[in-house]
């Protein structure tokens, strides 16, 4: 799947090529296209609210540093998600070794009307808890399918598995999440 914002705009592959040829505006365009999806993915995968922006920045930084390793087999956005997923895993590992405090700061009130958003928060909290305890592959397949709308073949290419296995992971994830958020 290639993400295009408008038919007259260059696709991700073309932007990567022009960036590599020295056009920094292409990098800005790519960041603009994928920041929201990447931020949502990282937050859904267990990143704390206050960490998401830094993690998004770090993911893009790592991606641009190793653009050579993106061969266009998977969509640029799927490739970003895998980099973000690896980064988050490393961060969790580092923090576990450093502190026993929770890294999750979702409870920080940042909404004007807590009462009206209580139910939504509750669902979101339970969903995030559920997503956190899913095996990584199940979680990433589920998020790529639901948040990106990627086909199983595309997910399989990005995550190094088969389309059949990706479908199975998706259904396992759905089953477990349904039980958790009942």
């Amino acid at each position, binding site marked *: 799947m290639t993400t295009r914002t408008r038919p007259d705009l260059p696709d991700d592959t073309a932007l990567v090529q022009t960036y590599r040829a020295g056009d920094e505006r292409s*990098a800005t365009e790519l960041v*603009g296209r994928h920041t929201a999806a990447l931020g*949502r993915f990282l937050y859904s995968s267990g990143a704390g609210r206050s960490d998401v922006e830094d993690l998004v920045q770090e993911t893009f930084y790592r991606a641009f*540093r190793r653009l050579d390793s993106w061969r266009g087999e998977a969509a640029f956005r799927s490739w970003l998600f895998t980099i973000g997923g690896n980064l988050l895993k490393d961060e969790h590992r580092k923090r576990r070794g450093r502190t026993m405090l929770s890294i999750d700061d979702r409870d920080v009130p940042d909404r004007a009307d807590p009462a009206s958003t209580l139910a939504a928060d509750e669902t979101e909290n339970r969903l995030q808890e559920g997503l956190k305890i899913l095996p990584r592959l199940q979680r990433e397949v*589920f998020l790529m399918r639901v948040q990106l709308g990627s086909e199983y073949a595309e997910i399989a290419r990005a995550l190094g598995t088969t389309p059949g296995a990706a479908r199975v992971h998706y259904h396992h994830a759905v089953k477990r999440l*349904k039980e958790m958020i009942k």
Partner: protein
Amino acid sequence: MTRCEELSDLMPEVAAGTLNWSEEQRLHLAACADCGQEWRLVSATRHFGDDLVASLDPSSISAAVLVRLAQDRRSARSRRNWLGGLAIAASISVLIWTGAGSRGHAPLTGPATTQVASQLTLPMAELDSLDTTQLQSVLEGLDQPLGAVASPTVPSLGDLNDLELERVLRSLEA
């Protein structure tokens, strides 16, 4: 494929807004508790963290990323320059060492020496202002043995008497 499986496959696209439920599918969702629950899960996941995502500023993220990448390029360049300097220093050392080893024999004019010398680029700003004739005379001066360049008006140490030698020694110690 059952109706539940069919709807399950369509849920991500409908949640993304690229497809709509047909009336028949909508009725099934309302009647089937399992599908209804899955649909709520998929919709909630699709819109998960909407407020957070809206607060992200792609332009500041992009600017920060580009600054870091530029810093990386600068460090890589200075690392390359440093290594280049090191390589030049090493080459000069090799040349001096080879020259010392061959002192008293033929001058260093073999093909290997010429090749190494041709790869050396030593910035010498003070030579930039000289014309070809002046550069040629500098080169000739460098090519001559040290004794040959000494000015004929300066006597060698062997020509000095004890008193003069004593004076030279004192001036060197001073």
